[in-house]
């Protein structure tokens, strides 16, 4: 375990996070935007767990943060997908630049 430095985990999660940023800013489809958000949340979870493993021996706060973050992001994804499906049902479109009316 000690063969792998903490920085290696951090670099991997940073790449994942900024891939998420890129997708969030460049995509137009709501579902792909949500997927990019998922990437960012996942990168944050990796960071929590890695910090807990390497910097706080014997404690488990980071693992619990990751656990609760996974729960919150599952709830958020479910609601967001319900809203997106509802938008699609109303205006047959889920591209963010074409959904510009609050009431149809």
């Amino acid at each position, binding site marked *: *375990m000690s063969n792998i430095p903490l920085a290696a985990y951090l670099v991997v999660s940073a790449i994942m996070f900024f891939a998420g*940023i890129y997708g969030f800013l460049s995509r137009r489809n709501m579902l792909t935007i949500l*997927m990019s958000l998922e990437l960012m949340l996942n990168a944050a979870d*990796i960071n929590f767990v890695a910090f807990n*493993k390497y910097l706080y021996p014997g*404690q488990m706060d980071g693992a619990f943060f990751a*656990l609760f973050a996974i729960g919150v992001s599952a709830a958020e994804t479910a609601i967001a997908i319900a809203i997106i499906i509802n938008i699609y049902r109303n205006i047959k479109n889920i591209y963010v630049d074409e959904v510009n009316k609050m009431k149809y």
Partner: protein
Amino acid sequence: MAEQIIFYVLAIVIVVFSILSVTSRRILRSATYLLFVLLATAGLYLLMGYEFLFGVQISVYAGGIMVLYIFSILLTSHAGDKAKKVSWKRLVPAGVAAVAGFAVCGHIIFHNVYKIAQTISPEISMQQLGTAMLGTGKDQYLLPFEAISILLLACVIGGIMIARKR
């Protein structure tokens, strides 16, 4: 040595597939790449010795959320659909923001993380985890656990309210 090889494989999978997932023009493919990223993340948790998080990641993300995504993709797009071409005006600022942010983060990681003392914590047993999750004492997590359960209940009710037919 074996751990390093496993870590490199997982890291390469994560990096390649997370970039493919945000650049692929076919939405179903990008969902599949996202699934690979989530599974590799679960592998990282296992490598760090958190078996419970590994199970949670597999069952919640790879099992639950990805099924939701694939269902909703199939509901909202047709087979073989490609995403519309995005103009350079959108791509360039997004790429610049991502690269600049990564540069700042990478600088911080390589110049500061080695300065702090690093220790390896012992593995957390399932019993410790369960006691901490359902206890009310110091460093125990019953209140957040209940808050999450209320949140999930609200999410269920909200999902039904949003998705029902009017």
